């Protein structure tokens, strides 16, 4: 009787060690999966990029709360917006990005008191990105829309809306 019980004990110990390694293996597999999931994905910096882009555009349009002269209603400024605001939308030649622009910006001017569109819109980049701004998913661009209030030298009040959209999904999502 004693012998049988001892044999059973040894058998249980062996099963326990197999079970132990099975548990270890499952835990290791879970850790490896999580690490690959975390480090396999690129860092998504588009939100910061869009915020910086919006700030740069705002700095280009206004200074110390006042709209710069020769901005509103100036076709030369509108036509050469990227150059005037020191922006370069060229991107690296990967994933076919050269053919498909990765940035889009749109600026709208409104009369502050009446919320009236002044019909002086400036837009640059890939207009198709705007269409996907309301969609959520890995292949859609990151969009950010921000408004700010400015005065001109005659104390007329305006609201400026800046929409910035950045695609670059392959390197960020």
């Amino acid at each position: 009787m004693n012998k049988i019980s001892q044999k059973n004990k040894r058998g249980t110990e062996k099963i326990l060690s197999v079970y132990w390694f099975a548990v270890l293996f499952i835990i290791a597999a879970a850790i490896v999966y999580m690490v690959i999931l975390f480090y396999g994905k690129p860092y998504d910096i588009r939100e910061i990029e869009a915020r910086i882009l919006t700030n740069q555009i705002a700095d280009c349009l206004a200074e110390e709360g006042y709209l710069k002269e020769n901005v509103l209603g100036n076709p030369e400024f509108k036509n050469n917006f990227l150059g005037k605001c020191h922006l370069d939308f060229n991107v690296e030649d990967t994933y076919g990005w050269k053919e498909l622009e990765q940035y889009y910006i749109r600026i709208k001017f409104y009369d502050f008191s009446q919320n009236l569109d002044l019909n002086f819109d400036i837009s640059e980049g890939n207009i198709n990105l705007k269409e996907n701004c309301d969609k959520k998913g890995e292949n859609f661009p990151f969009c950010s829309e921000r408004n700010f209030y400015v005065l001109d030298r005659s104390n007329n009040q305006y609201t400026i809306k800046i929409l910035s959209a950045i695609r670059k999904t392959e390197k960020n999502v």
Partner: protein
Amino acid sequence: MIKRRNKKANILTENIIFIILNLVFLTILLLFLFSKIESAVVLEERYAKQIALLIDSAKPATDIHLNMEEAFNKIEKGWNINNIVTINGNIVTVKLREKGGYSYSFFNDVDVTVYPDVNNRDYIIKINGYNKNE
């Protein structure tokens, strides 16, 4: 008496093997984790994006000192420190080994110069001025 001793020796050997296998298992797991966390691929991407964002938010006549100690430690044998960060047009490339590298573009149209400060394990990013595209 001899049989009992043999049995005890067996139990001890089994336990030692069990512990050694556990340790081997854990070591392999930790090595995998550290290789992923500190891999050159991850560092290249991190630094390239960080530098692109720094340039995007910088104004002309700015010097940025970026500590790149991790990159200096991870550099491949024989790879020149001067070639870790390069800027071509508006594209930053960080390369810690001959085969590899990571590039990211910045939109701020500025003229940038980069060079290493080996003593401080830094890279200096000098924003000279805006490019003349007006």
